[in-house]
């Protein structure tokens, strides 16, 4: 998709409007330059708590969204906080108005904060009872030891307890300013209509950002493993990880390398499914997940198996990683991966809120590169596949498991 160039409002808000005819909805998303890495460790989770609190300050807000048929959601990662609305196509003005109202709030109330904190704390407890999630959290703790990235974006419960209204109000003043935000509108709306709706609403946002630019250098600890024995479980949940520090720079080469890691994930999933499930029935599922946070990136493989199968499963995964390191790719692999990534990208275009959010996120993390994506998969070739594959080293894996006690 050829993207329209963004424009700036007088208050510094950058706006991307990309009409897509035929769809049934409009995605409206705002990304802002404040993520989990910006959080002081003693207040980890503040970005996520703040997103939730903003919805709780006015008890009528959710009703009014519902009355307009607008769905909403938030995403948080280590760099960026994102809010999105999905609205019926005739509701662009109402969506922009409500969005502006949400982001204009400056005063946090004790009641709203306390209930949101309890919600987040409970959510963390609930998730930690899921052994698969627990395995991934354990993996992050060793893979990013000594940095904020070792802790989930949702934060730690002890830190969430410490968050105060004044702390969140400080973030609102420093980070929730139009000049640190990107507004992205995508879907079934004309450019002129969207432009009018935006200028009539988002222009009211005020403030200047003063978020301290972080040094995102995340140390790479020595490979290690951890096994947690948990009562009440019968299966072993495993998570393996690899670190690629500073793999993803914001230039053309860095982005092409990252897309190549995505393509390796596609191929590895095929191979793991075939080797572990189809041929041997060792595992119900085993998936890989690349994770890029701009200034550091990582690669996860996770699944669950019967305890007796763990050594064989681990060995087979490492053998597949060795093949990737050795550059065992065919022309058919390359074709399969490129086409798969292209299809995923095109299919995402049918999902308005997802595409709007993604564009806001990419604009914040990739800058002008987001506009230069005519054929992003075309940059993946055999040489790059082998070069990037060479970064995987089975001897440098991090490994965590939750096992029966």
């Amino acid at each position: 998709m050829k993207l329209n160039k963004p424009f700036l409002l007088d208050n510094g808000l950058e706006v991307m409007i990309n009409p897509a005819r035929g769809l049934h909805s409009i995605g409206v998303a705002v990304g802002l330059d404040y993520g989990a890495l910006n959080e002081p460790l003693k207040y980890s989770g503040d970005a996520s708590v703040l997103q939730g609190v903003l919805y709780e300050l006015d008890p009528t807000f959710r009703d009014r969204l519902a009355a307009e048929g607008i769905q909403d959601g938030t995403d948080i990662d280590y760099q960026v906080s994102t809010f999105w609305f999905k609205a019926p196509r005739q509701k662009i003005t109402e969506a922009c108005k409500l969005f502006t109202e949400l982001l204009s709030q400056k005063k946090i109330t004790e009641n709203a904060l306390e209930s949101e904190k309890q919600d987040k704390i409970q959510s963390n407890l609930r998730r930690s009872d899921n052994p698969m999630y627990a395995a991934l959290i354990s993996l992050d703790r060793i893979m990013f030891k000594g940095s904020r990235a070792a802790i989930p974006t949702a934060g730690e419960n002890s830190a969430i307890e410490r968050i105060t209204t004044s702390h969140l109000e400080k973030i609102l003043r420093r980070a929730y300013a139009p000049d640190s935000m990107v507004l992205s509108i995508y879907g079934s709306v004309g450019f002129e209509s969207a432009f009018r709706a935006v200028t009539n609403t988002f222009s009211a946002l005020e403030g200047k950002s003063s978020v301290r630019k972080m040094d995102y250098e995340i140390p790479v600890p020595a490979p290690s493993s951890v096994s947690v024995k948990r009562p009440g479980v019968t299966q072993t949940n495993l998570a393996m990880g690899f670190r690629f520090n500073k793999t993803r720079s914001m230039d053309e080469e860095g982005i092409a390398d990252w897309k190549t890691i995505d393509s390796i994930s596609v191929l590895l999933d095929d191979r793991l499914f075939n080797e572990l499930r189809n041929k041997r029935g060792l595992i119900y599922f085993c998936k890989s997940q690349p994770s890029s946070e701009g200034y550091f990136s990582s690669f996860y493989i996770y699944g669950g198996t019967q305890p007796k199968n763990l050594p064989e499963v681990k060995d087979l995964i490492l053998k597949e990683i060795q093949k990737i390191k050795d550059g065992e790719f065919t022309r058919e692999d390359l074709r399969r991966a490129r086409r798969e990534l292209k299809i995923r990208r095109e299919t995402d275009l049918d999902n308005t809120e997802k595409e709007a959010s993604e564009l806001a996120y990419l604009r914040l993390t990739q800058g002008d590169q987001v506009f230069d994506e005519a054929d992003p998969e075309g940059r993946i070739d055999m040489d790059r596949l082998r070069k990037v594959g060479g970064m995987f080293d089975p001897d440098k894996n991090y490994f965590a498991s939750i096992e029966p006690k």
Partner: protein
Amino acid sequence: MKLDELPKLSNGMRFMIISAPYLHSVGVSVGVKYGSVYEPERINGSAHAAEHMLFQGTERRSAQDLEKFKNRHNLEWNAFTAPETVTYMIGAPRDSAEAAVDILSDMVQNSAIDAKLLENEKGAIVNEIMMRADNPLAMLYDTIPAVLFEGQKAAVSGAGKKETVLALARDEMFDVYCKNYTPANMVLSIYGGISKKRATELADRYFGGFQRPYTEPSLPDSIGPSKSKTIEIEKEGLNTTHAAIAFAIPGSRRILADNPRDIVALEVMSGYLSKKLHDEVRAQTGGSDPGISFYPNGTFGIFSIFLDCGSKKFERTNALVLSELEKLINGDINIDINADKVKNAAVLYFNTNQMELDHALTMAVEGAADQAVHSVTLRDFEGVVNEINNDQLHAAAQKYLKLGRAAQVIVRPPK
């Protein structure tokens, strides 16, 4: 549109096609009316095992060939087993629509159910079953029907028990497959970036020649709650309490298809309770929001309220939820104030479904699953939403949400 109104191929197989040519993808789905409620107890898990085995090769293609075909055409596939149906789904880029119809037709018509591969696959199935038992939220979902429908067909595990799955024999599995994977017992759904003409051609080409006789299995006319029951499961290693209150909705979709106001009323109640409990629980206990789930099957449904409140606040939150339910049942709610919100919640639900037209695969799956169990899709009820009034809401609450017959399941850390 009711099942009987769907168009049929020459072999009697029903199909539904919705063309949305602007979409980049096509969803192709087949719903089969054979889930765990149809299984004799001895072969509990056979529907689920059949679901797995359809991906393990056909008379024309080995498992590896299927996988290669899927990858060559960049298809995505999945399947799920529900109490009354198994649904298979293939997502495809629009230029691979024919490949999607081709491979799915091969799987449902020509599965080999190879004995050796069945033994192999049992390992993955048991792993899946046990992983669900390890996860307290999944455990909660699986325990609710067991408590709510104790002693009835709907109580059995959809995925199957480890012991019965391990004992499944190839011939039994093949028999299950041949008896139930028949044109008269399946619905094909194609949705998304494909013209109606092209989709009809593909449906006819790949499914029209399929012939296999079918005898409908016997099933109780209605499935209802046995009695009110609370079950507490102490599970080691947990950090918090996971709990739910659930109500059986007997005869949900099949019967309610003739009385759409009831099913809309339940959807409206779901929206109302979701908002009301969010506000009340946060205000009165400072705790986190309960979640509402209304899951209608063909012959029975489950209306559940999940209490994500934690161990310390469980008693207070539970009491609050019961109190709000009583108010709803007794008609003791501020109807004048909430009426518009309640209606809007339902309207939103239908609008949302409308907007989800963007997701070809989801829609194809919903179509196949809904239609396969003699029901109508919820979107067909849109006109009813604006007619529903508070008297009907109260009547439906009294009819279906009987506190004296509710099941409560609590999965908690040891005291």
